[in-house]
């Protein structure tokens, strides 16, 4: 079951004006004092998700093996070919990637649930999929060319935006359950890569368990 494509199907079957994505409230947020920044950024993301975020990912998504081959030439070669990053010195590259592999390890009961995935069949994990609800990093935000820091009030608002995008990604996934080690997983997602030798920590925006 792909929640994203399901939503898209529902959208298509309705008139455009009737289609509105309302994110489920994140239980983690109710523990904090309500802040207008958070609410505003969540609303911004809910509105931009289907119309702007998903299209950027779809347009820029590169097959994992293709990306891995290019990364062998160095991070900047791969970045120039497939990467996305904000202007400015020393900003790391972000990549949108699709692929499938075999789960080698999973920690699904954590607030920061993760799966390790072997992508090349050698039995060793090559990537980490961040299933949330706590997702590390700002890859989704920083991969979006239409999001520019200058347009936001300050770092605090900009950070809440990154958090809202991570929350949106996590809430759109059907989290796998049970013993998934050995199962096949197919995904589309975004990650930040600082060095070609780092392990990608992918934030999935679509996830399917089992043979696609």
């Amino acid at each position: 079951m792909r929640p994203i494509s399901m939503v898209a199907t529902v959208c298509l079957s309705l008139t455009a004006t009737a289609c509105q994505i309302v994110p489920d409230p994140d239980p983690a947020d109710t523990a904090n004092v309500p802040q207008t920044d958070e609410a505003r950024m969540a609303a911004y993301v809910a509105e931009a998700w289907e119309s702007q975020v998903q299209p950027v990912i779809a347009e820029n998504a590169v097959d994992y093996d293709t990306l891995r081959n290019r990364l062998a030439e160095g991070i900047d070669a791969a970045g120039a070919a497939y990467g996305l990053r904000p202007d400015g010195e020393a900003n790391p590259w972000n990549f949108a990637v699709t692929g499938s592999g075999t789960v080698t390890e999973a920690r699904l009961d954590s607030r920061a649930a993760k799966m390790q995935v072997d992508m090349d069949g050698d039995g060793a994990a090559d990537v980490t999929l961040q299933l949330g609800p706590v997702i590390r990093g700002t890859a989704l935000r920083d991969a979006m060319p239409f999001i520019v820091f200058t347009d936001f009030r300050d770092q605090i608002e900009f950070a809440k935006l990154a958090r809202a995008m991570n929350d949106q990604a996590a809430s759109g996934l059907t989290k796998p359950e049970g013993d998934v080690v050995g199962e096949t997983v197919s995904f589309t997602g975004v990650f930040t890569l600082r060095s070609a030798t780092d392990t990608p920590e992918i934030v999935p925006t679509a996830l399917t368990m089992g043979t696609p």
Partner: protein
Amino acid sequence: MSITRRLFVSGLAITAVLPTVRAAQAQEKGLIAIITPSHDNPFFKAEAVGAEARAKELGYETLVLVHDDDPNKQSQMFDTAIARGAQAIILDNAGADATVAPVQRAKDAGIPSFLIDREIKESGIAVSQIVSNNYQGAQLGAEEFVMLMGEEGPYVELLGREADTNAGIRSAGYHDIIDQYPDLEMVAQQSANWSQTEGYAKMETILQANPGIKGVICGNDTMAMGAWAALEAAGRTEVIVVGFDGSNDVRDSILNGGIKATVLQPAYRQAQLAVEQADQYLQTGSTGQPEKQLMDCVLINEENAARLETFALADAATN
């Protein structure tokens, strides 16, 4: 009147004459004012030193001023820079709101400002605002802190000065990570205003009320140094302390088994970059960059502390 004339002449020099003279004679490029908080904090000193060195390399005279986090003093310094006919101002500012007016005043006088380290609340007034990615850095520090704490136990947070956006953003980054671990309990949260002496005093008091604390996470390195000194004085050197900045003091403490970790802000490079953008802007009318730019931070712990010097990390042997 003399300011206008000087600007006009400088403009001529840049557009018409400079390409034909040797770079070594470029002292003619004029004055860059470098305004930061007090150099008592080595972080701000590194900024000033980095900016000054780069400005001189690029052929500018420099005027280095310190506002001591006093907006009135900062305002006077802008007047000084304007009166001296500065070509550009490099600024680590004295308050996100209070700084908008002087930067605007400089802009109205034809002097572009290039901000480092701290943001102001408006865009479109300064040419560049280059700040550390404090949120990213705070998350790095918090992840290390959580790991060191073994994901459990009572801890204390020392916050920076409230008027400074960086105090809020670092705390937000810390808590976005730490609050996910229900067994980590914050028993005290107080501002020590970025200050080492306040860090010491606050830590002493907190320790009396909460003798069972296991860790202290701090909004900057000077407060971490203060907290560590208080813990040492109380014989509590098992308490885990994490800072933020990447100062040489904390580096040495890490290497001596004191403070456990910090987060490096590339302050020296950031200041140099601001000068380079100022130079490019003065010569071409554009920096080629968006106004607000983030620079990523790097976690410093015992594994890489030895490579840290004056807010810059030497390259590791591996990529």
